[in-house]
């Protein structure tokens, strides 16, 4: 940059950033404070510095048992498995589809692309009952696999959309080169395209992971057994009509958020690339 901006502009910009960031962080910090405060009630004190700090809430939330069976551990495991499986299933389904839609002009391609996007318009929560019946018919009720499949289907359209956009930006010449090098379609896909699509795969995988990690209505409906519960269902029950334990909820919320926030930060440098190429190319 040849010219440097005026001091006033620099100061104002940073001021604006500080204010907006504080606004963005306030509810999050509020959770942290509630988690560390000994009371289970929602405090009306708007300042974030509270008196006594304790980790008791975390202990209470983590140390839950169902007759010798460590519930929190099982539920954490469930959440991890479901979310990972969702991301995995979602990626497997979406990657090949996104690639085919990006590359090959087979009859019905446009219709297929629209069909994927149209499924984004189905009102999800209302489908809980039909899904319950369906999973029961497939014998997948109460199994994490069933839940992962359900989540994957909500994650797949978005993934297909993002990945197709990203594949569109990969030059076709690379595949042609590989073809001339004697690689089959599959080899080209696995050895040339997929390694190049890593940023998009990471971002897409993360979003699928989050879909599963954060969902509670379907989980609450489709899982009957507390040992099969995922963490959001448990968290939700801390503040249901039966009575609210905000301290436990907040502690649980932090435990639930840490993994996604960590993944988010780890992958955020890919976001810009992975997301916008999808957006630009539509």
């Amino acid at each position, binding site marked *: 940059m040849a010219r440097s901006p005026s001091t006033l502009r620099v100061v104002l910009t940073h001021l604006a950033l500080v204010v907006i960031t504080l606004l963005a962080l306030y509810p999050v910090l509020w959770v942290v404070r509630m988690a560390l405060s000994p009371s289970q009630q929602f405090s009306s004190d708007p300042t974030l510095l509270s008196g006594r700090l304790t980790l008791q809430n975390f202990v209470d939330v983590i140390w839950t048992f169902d007759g010798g069976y460590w519930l929190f551990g099982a539920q954490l495991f469930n959440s991890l498995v479901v979310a990972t499986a969702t991301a995995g299933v979602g990626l497997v389904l979406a990657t090949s589809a996104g690639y085919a839609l990006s590359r090959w002009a087979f009859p019905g391609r446009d219709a297929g692309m629209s069909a994927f996007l149209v499924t984004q318009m189905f009102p999800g929560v209302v489908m809980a009952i039909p899904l319950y019946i369906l999973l029961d018919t497939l014998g997948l009720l109460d199994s994490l696999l069933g839940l992962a499949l359900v989540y994957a289907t909500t994650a797949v359209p978005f993934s297909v959309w993002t990945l197709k956009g990203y594949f569109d930006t990969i030059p076709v*010449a*690379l595949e042609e080169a*590989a*073809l*001339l090098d004697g*690689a089959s379609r599959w080899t080209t896909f696995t*050895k040339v395209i997929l*390694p*190049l699509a890593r940023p998009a795969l990471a971002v897409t995988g993360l979003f699928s992971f989050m879909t599963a990690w954060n969902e509670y209505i379907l989980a609450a409906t489709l899982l009957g057994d507390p040992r099969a519960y995922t963490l959001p269902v448990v968290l939700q029950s801390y503040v249901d009509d039966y009575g609210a334990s905000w301290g436990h909820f907040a502690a649980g919320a932090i435990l639930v958020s840490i993994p996604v926030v960590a993944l988010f930060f780890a992958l955020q440098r890919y976001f810009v690339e992975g997301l916008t190429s999808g957006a630009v190319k539509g």
Partner: protein
Amino acid sequence: MAGVTLNGLYKRYGSTSVLEGIDLDVEDGEYIVLVGPSGCGKSTLLRCIAGLEEITAGTLEIGGRRVNDLSPRARNVAMVFQSYALYPHMTVRRNMGFALEVARRPKAEIREAVEDVAAMLDLVPLLDRLPGQLSGGQRQRVAMGRAIVRRPDVFLFDEPLSNLDASLRHHMRVELKHLHRRLQTTVFHVTHDQVEALTLADRIVVLHQGVVQQVGTPRELFDRPANTFVGTFIGSPSMALLPAVGAGGTVRIDGLEGELELPGEGAMTLGLRPTDIEVGRGPLRGQIEVIESLGAEALLHLDLGPDRKLVAQVPEPCQAQPGEVVSLLPRVVHRFHAETGERLP
């Protein structure tokens, strides 16, 4: 190693026709350069040979074998793309060895083949870098190397030098020539740069709107262009075309004084190359508009009359001044049919 034969090759995309009946017989080891203006179908032809595009009609033979329906890998051809198409996530070594890796050759063999070629192309110090860490010229050489490692029957180069700067391009031209002499493999080289065509080719194929205009050695093309298109396309600066009428052993350029002693009766088109025009004597007269100095030579832009322009190349130092009127003598004149543009015998 193999010769290539194209027989009535057509390529259409829906209703648009890109290649219209290409006939070409290429001998084993020949260096063929395809030239033509942008969009004339050069890349398409190359891609048809490679198998990246389906051939609409006609036959393609490589080494005497019909390959129309063979997949690219079964044709054993190698291609260097204009963008090089190096795999960005693989090292130079893996890029070069990828074809062999895919063919499941033993690791040691791949290593040896890659290193041989790398030595040939001065790529040894770059072997463990990624394409992103290379300069344009280096990438170009890697792309060449990748094609060579496979020892294909035919090389296909699609404008391989067009992304390089002038001096590097010149250097690579020479190197390509060397390589070809060493490998003796059939090459199809696409370019729109006629210098490249003239310097590299055993034979040049001039393509225009999907039709082959002329096939021949650089000399043949330069000395005996088959039509006005080839005449103007080959040679720089370009040949000037002037309408003329012949009668009884002399030809007169429309709208000008002075007659040229040439055979032919009736309307025709004359083609005059700047290098073939002698200044200072002769039947034609022209006024110098601009003088362009190129160092060893100068180009005189001449106005012969309304709508009649001509360029003449003269050695430097040149004493003429702009505005001066000079006499001109065309040493060689190409005569073309007035309507079809075909060369007249």
